[in-house]
């Protein structure tokens, strides 16, 4: 570059070449870092979107008389109790003893009952009634709705937190889950 030749002559005839510094920088590390950040931002923008579970509750003020009767034999009622326990029974309350289960076993029970109902009625869908009681946590409720989705129950489940019968309450107290 702009430098003064101070070598004082030196060998004559040879051109004095200014040294050219290599301008190439190794960009590998920079590219690595950039891609790491890209990956991070891509994943956080698309994954941070929360996921929603749509819930429909029965209309409280529905005064219409068009109500379909449910067949008791096709209905499975799941009561959500405390300590992550559920109690379920088929048919009408009080007539059959509920089974108390944890959340890990309920999926099998749902599938069993679904199959049974489908076999005995010739392909009809099981009807689910979910009754969260005061002992249940919010997580229990989400979990049970999730189980229904996993077991592919297509009929809309009835979520009923108003009409928990005395027979049900008594049983749950007896089992120590209310």
């Amino acid at each position, binding site marked *: 570059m702009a430098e003064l030749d101070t070598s004082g002559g030196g060998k004559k005839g040879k051109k004095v070449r200014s040294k050219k510094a290599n301008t190439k920088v*190794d*960009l*590998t590390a*920079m*590219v690595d870092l*950039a*891609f790491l*950040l*890209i990956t991070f*931002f*891509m994943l*956080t*923008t698309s*994954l*941070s*979107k*929360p*996921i*929603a*579970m*749509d*819930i*429909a*509750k*029965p*209309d*409280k*003020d529905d005064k219409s008389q068009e109500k379909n009767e449910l067949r008791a034999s096709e209905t499975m009622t799941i009561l*959500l109790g405390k300590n992550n326990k559920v109690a379920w029974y088929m048919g009408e309350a009080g007539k059959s003893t509920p089974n108390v289960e944890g959340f890990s076993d309920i999926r099998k029970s749902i599938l069993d009952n679904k199959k049974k109902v489908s076999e005995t009625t010739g392909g009809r869908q099981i009807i689910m009634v979910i009754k*969260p*009681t*005061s*002992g*249940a*946590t*919010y*997580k*229990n*409720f*989400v*979990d049970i*709705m*999730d189980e229904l*989705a*996993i077991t592919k129950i297509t009929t809309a489940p009835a979520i009923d*937190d108003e009409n928990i019968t005395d027979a049900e309450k008594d049983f749950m107290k007896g089992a120590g889950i209310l």
Partner: protein
Amino acid sequence: MPRAKVQRKSTSIDMTAMCDVSFLLLTFFILTATARQPDPLDVIIPSSTYKLKVPDLDMGILSIGKGKVFYEIVGKDIKMSTLDKMGEKYSIKFTPEERERFGVIGAFGVPVQSLKQFIMMSSDERTKSKMDTGIPADSTNNQLAEWILQSRTAVAELHSTSMRVSIKGDGQEEYPTVKKIVDILQKQKINKFSLITSAEGDAK
């Protein structure tokens, strides 16, 4: 016999173009990423296998945890319009500056009476002030119902769609607390709402 010369090729590649592209993408992602407002209420949402993504428009999010309720309205214009309506309802006058500040606020959980003070604080002061007592939702002083109603009206007026209501509940929250909120929604004839969950791996 002379040895056959193996020509050595340089293994270094010109990275300039690649670097350019990657930084371009990086800039894009940084700019599109929305800065998340810190959640004043710490909730651990339960996980589920649902795959439905929440739309990020015209929505009201209710955070429930520790027996308190916080409300977040999505969209600046909706927030400002809701604030106007609430001000009218509770006869509190909000200045344009307060409206502007409320427009960028995230979730809030203060009674409407101390909202004015809350708006003018910085976010640090807000966490320190311990004013986050949740929105009153008793039957005598049901401000939460009013907030939901006014924001729904605002969405209907400004965007002419209906507002979605989402519930973001803490996993350990007891069901009766959630039921109380759901009952408030059902009183306004919102029978369909979304529960926000986090993603879970596919069930085996």
